[in-house]
């Protein structure tokens, strides 16, 4: 099984090396190398999953990496269990589909080979993160996926916006990573190991005080919040849309941003011990879901809508984890990966054809782009949680779990957010695909087969995965199997509200029975508040300008003028003292004679005084 894991991991790495050093000149070969490697990885990951399915359990491989202390081994390794094997499949699948799609989307791009080499590096890093058997290795690959995200957001580095967005993404997530790093170091010092299974064992024996457990859990969550774009570290994700759209689908929707959720799942044994930490996660997750969901309603850029929607859905996952919905949260991660990747690729197909992101410059594309429209609709329905798509199963599981755990306020907010979700997706769908034509002089056309075949495949998954929800909950659980509830009321209510939201969007944007402009004026304050994304970016800019830059300039000034001033002052003092003393030794006899004469007079004066 570990040979297969090595195959999964090393294929994309080999592709990265090959493309970077050898095939960079030839675009065709580069993309081919990358895709073949990914296909092999996907096959291997399917085999691994089959093996795990036949005998669920933890399979671990340890390889020593740095030997300094015997009581703190630093290792690399592999931990295969149901959780990681499922994630392997998800990553490989989405990555392969995105790579195939990119052949069409990135056609004729200047940095085509570079793009494929980075995407291979990303796949390698993400897979390494998934199979990590210890926190340090996870942190290492965690940073590497961050690097790939930076490089790929900045793919068109000559655009100032892209360069800024890349930097912002890296720096903001680094704030979270800081917490994670402290957590890793803290745990290593207290438990003497980085290994997940061993930490679980040691912590289970109650070596850490409850306060320490809460602190560690929150520090880990810091890292997770940065990567998974949770409030208040979510601000980088919308900007990250400056990258190529397939990258948004792969990294900023399906895989990397889910890594934070995956991290919490992997270290759930710590969170489980701290009720406080779980509450914090639940509250942050829920408020993130609500905030991002509401912002998505007023966005005009199709990718921004999807970006805020991703933040919102990641909030749902965190909420689930915070209310002991381990299985529900993880299942939503997987279904979301498929339908959100689908939506992004669909949006990319539209952008590819019209060369604009603005939904108000589209319209009536159903006529020209049938495959894209239908698959986008499926993705939208899945996101809205409409029966029988996979989104229905995963989202309702979260809602039920929230209600059952007794968090009524959180449930109410989450339920409302589900309505938002349906509304903004319907809004986008009607405006882009059904309403009046708003582009002129352009001739939209269906994308080539390399682009729409992945759409169809992902759409199949987005619908089909839902039927595996029961099997999933038998395979992946924390503690005891969480028997799926066959509640009827909540699914019914949530579906009704989703349909209600869709009808509302239809009335506003399709039939224009209610004027959108009038609504905006009526709720001008709310609209402005949402349009400005709760003014969170402004708050950050204010802090950076007025705190960070001021402090840094003060440090620079202090160093140049005070510390160095002291040095120069000492130098000046020495040289001026020397200059003064120098006058004592002029070598002229007259001067010395004056000195002697003066001295004698002074002496005589003193002696008279003494009397």
């Amino acid at each position: 099984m570990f040979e297969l894991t090595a195959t999964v991991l090393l294929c994309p790495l080999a592709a990265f090396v090959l493309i970077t050093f050898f095939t960079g000149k030839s675009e065709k070969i580069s993309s081919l190398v990358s895709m073949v490697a990914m296909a092999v990885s996907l096959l291997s990951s399917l085999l691994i999953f089959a093996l795990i399915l036949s005998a669920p359990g933890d399979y671990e491989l340890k390889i020593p990496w740095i030997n300094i202390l015997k009581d703190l081994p630093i290792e690399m390794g592999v931990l295969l269990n149901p959780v990681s094997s499922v994630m392997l499949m998800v990553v490989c699948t989405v990555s392969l589909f995105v790579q195939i799609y990119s052949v069409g989307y990135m056609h004729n791009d200047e940095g085509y080979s570079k793009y494929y080499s980075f995407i291979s590096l990303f796949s390698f890093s993400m897979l390494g993160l998934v199979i990590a058997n210890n926190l340090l290795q996870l942190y290492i690959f965690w940073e590497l996926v961050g690097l790939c995200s930076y490089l790929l957001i900045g793919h068109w580095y000559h655009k100032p916006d892209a360069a800024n967005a890349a930097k912002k993404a890296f720096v903001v997530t680094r704030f979270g990573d800081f917490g994670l790093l402290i957590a890793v170091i803290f745990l290593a010092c207290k438990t003497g190991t980085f290994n997940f299974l061993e930490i679980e064992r040691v912590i289970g024996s109650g070596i850490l005080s409850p306060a320490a457990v809460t602190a560690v859990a929150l520090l880990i969550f810091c890292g997770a919040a940065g990567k998974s774009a949770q409030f208040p570290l979510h601000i980088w994700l919308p900007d990250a849309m400056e990258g190529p759209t397939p990258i948004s689908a792969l990294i900023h929707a399906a895989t990397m941003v889910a890594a934070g959720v995956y991290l919490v799942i992997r270290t759930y044994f710590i969170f489980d011990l701290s009720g406080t930490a779980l509450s914090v996660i639940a509250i942050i997750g829920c408020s993130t879901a609500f905030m991002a969901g509401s912002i998505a309603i007023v966005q005009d850029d199709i990718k921004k809508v999807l970006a805020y929607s991703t933040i919102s859905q990641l909030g749902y996952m965190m909420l689930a984890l915070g209310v002991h919905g381990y299985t529900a949260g993880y299942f939503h991660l997987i279904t979301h990966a498929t339908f959100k990747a689908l939506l992004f690729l669909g949006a990319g197909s539209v952008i590819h054809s019209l060369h604009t992101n603005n939904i108000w410059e589209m319209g009536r594309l159903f006529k020209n782009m049938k495959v894209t429209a239908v698959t986008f609709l499926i993705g939208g329905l899945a996101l809205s949680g409409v029966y029988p798509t996979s989104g229905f199963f995963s989202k309702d599981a979260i809602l039920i779990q929230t209600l059952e755990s007794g968090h009524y306020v959180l449930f109410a907010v989450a339920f409302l957010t589900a309505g938002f979700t349906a509304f903004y997706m319907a809004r986008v769908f009607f405006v882009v695909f059904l309403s009046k034509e708003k582009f002129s002089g352009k001739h939209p056309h269906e994308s080539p087969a390399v682009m729409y075949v992945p759409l169809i495949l992902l759409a199949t998954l987005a619908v089909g995965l839902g039927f595996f929800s029961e099997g999933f909950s038998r395979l992946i659980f924390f503690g005891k199997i969480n028997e799926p509830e066959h509640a009827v009321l909540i699914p019914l209510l949530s579906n009704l509200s989703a349909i209600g939201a869709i009808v509302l969007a239809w009335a506003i944007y399709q039939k224009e029975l209610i004027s959108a402009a009038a609504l905006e004026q009526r709720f001008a304050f709310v609209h402005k508040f949402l349009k400005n994304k709760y003014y969170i970016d402004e708050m950050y800019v204010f802090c950076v300008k007025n705190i960070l830059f001021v402090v840094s300039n003060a440090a620079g000034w202090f160093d140049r003028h005070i510390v160095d001033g002291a040095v120069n002052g000492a130098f000046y003092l020495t040289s001026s003292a020397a200059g003064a003393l120098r006058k004592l030794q002029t070598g002229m006899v007259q001067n010395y004679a004056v000195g002697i004469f003066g001295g004698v007079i002074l002496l005589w004066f003193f002696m008279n005084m003494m009397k």
Partner: protein
Amino acid sequence: MIVHFPFLSAILSVTLLGALIIIVLPENKHFLMKVTAGVTGFISLVLSLALFVLYDRSLGGFQFVEQIAWLPRLGITYQVGIDGIGLAMLLLTGIVILTGVLISSHEFKAGGLLGATGRPKEFYALLLVLVAGVFGVFMSLDLFFFFLFYELAVLPMYLLIGIWGTGKKEYSAMKLTLYLLLGSAFILIGILALYFSSGLRTFDWLVLRSVAFPAHFQNIVFPVIFVGFGILAGLWPFHTWSPDGHASAPSAVSMLHAGVLMKLGAFGIIRVALELFPIGAKFWCPILVFLPIVNIVYGALSAMSQKDLKYVIAYSSVSHMGIVLLGICSLNALGLNGAVFQMFSHGVMTALFFALVGCIYGRTHTRILNEMGGLAKLAPFLAVAFTVGGLASLGLPGTSGFVAEFLVFLGAFKAYPALTVIAATGIVITAIYVLRVVQKIFFASLNPNYIPEADACTMKDQFTHEHLEEVSDSGHKGFPISVSDAVLLEKIPIVMLMGILILFGIWPSLIINVINIGVSSIVQTIGGSL
């Protein structure tokens, strides 16, 4: 297996011989001088590598020891030997001198950064003498020679910066030299105190190590030596010589200086202060540890506010040397391993940076960040290399910078948890300024001051030599400058340095296994963890 060949003396004599050959070469044979310097650098690297391979890991301790009585009446012996820590430093020195010579040989070409000053003969001779001093410090087992080599390494700096430097070079050279001599004065006091109070009248480090000095003596002398060497290591608040010095020095000198010379300070703290005064170390390190913390955070903040590229890198060195000193102050195996590994890693990284800064400066004729932009289009190779260096600097896993910082923080956390958390904020600030610099130089739209080389040919007659000179003197005056990517002579050293950063980032055990041999004996001397 210990081979009976005087490897250590061979390294020393090769570098000195190289300098000698260059001095006697005829004035106009510039090419021969460069070749001699390059070959000398290469041989010293190969010898260091040979030592690295031949060093017996199972035996540990000092190996390849050579001993020649020099002034027996005063207890002075020429005694050299190498342990795990010294080995890492030898290797680093070999790498930096070879790459430095290669980079500067390109700069001596007409129109290059050093082309106007010329005088390659004196330049290379001084450079090699300096390196001989550095090698000597890392291998000396006699405090007299330790000090002698130390001074030999510091003094040529004055001329190298004063003559071949840029900007306010006389001021910088003077400041650097006086400051470092002040440090030397402290060190000299410490060494003499050792010599006289031991009652043995010997400078032999091995003998002195076995002497148990009384606690109050250790507590008095330790801070003197710590600060003395700390000055060279860029210890706050005695670091201000370094930004000016680095900014004024030519590329190869900056490479050697930030890459290797600052490590002499840290090395001296380990070898003299820590190993000879274990009790003093235990008393003082928990107090002095505040200074490295200031180094890390304050250095990074200052780097952020700089406008000149070289100052950014120089302040980042101050910040990174803080990590070395923090590792040393933690006094445990993890921290010390991390510190030595960081010395190696930062040496390579900063050499890479200064090499690249030279390449960039030579093309743009400015080091002001706001006057650059979009250069990735014209010089993709330099962009990639600078990014790799930047990533190592911000401690990205996969580069040696991460391993070093992680080990230091891990070790420091065991000793000083709260302070380490403060120090670790440095990684966030570093990320901010490094990415900012990368973006300002290479990304966004191309600054109109620069044009691709191909375009320059069409308007060549507009570009007289005077124009270029004027531009180089006073920043841009509206003349677009053609910028090309790195040439082979620049690419070789840059690729070498990049490769090392990544190799040791992925496979740190390669060198940590050796370092750890040296460190574990120190930890034993100090008496376990703090």
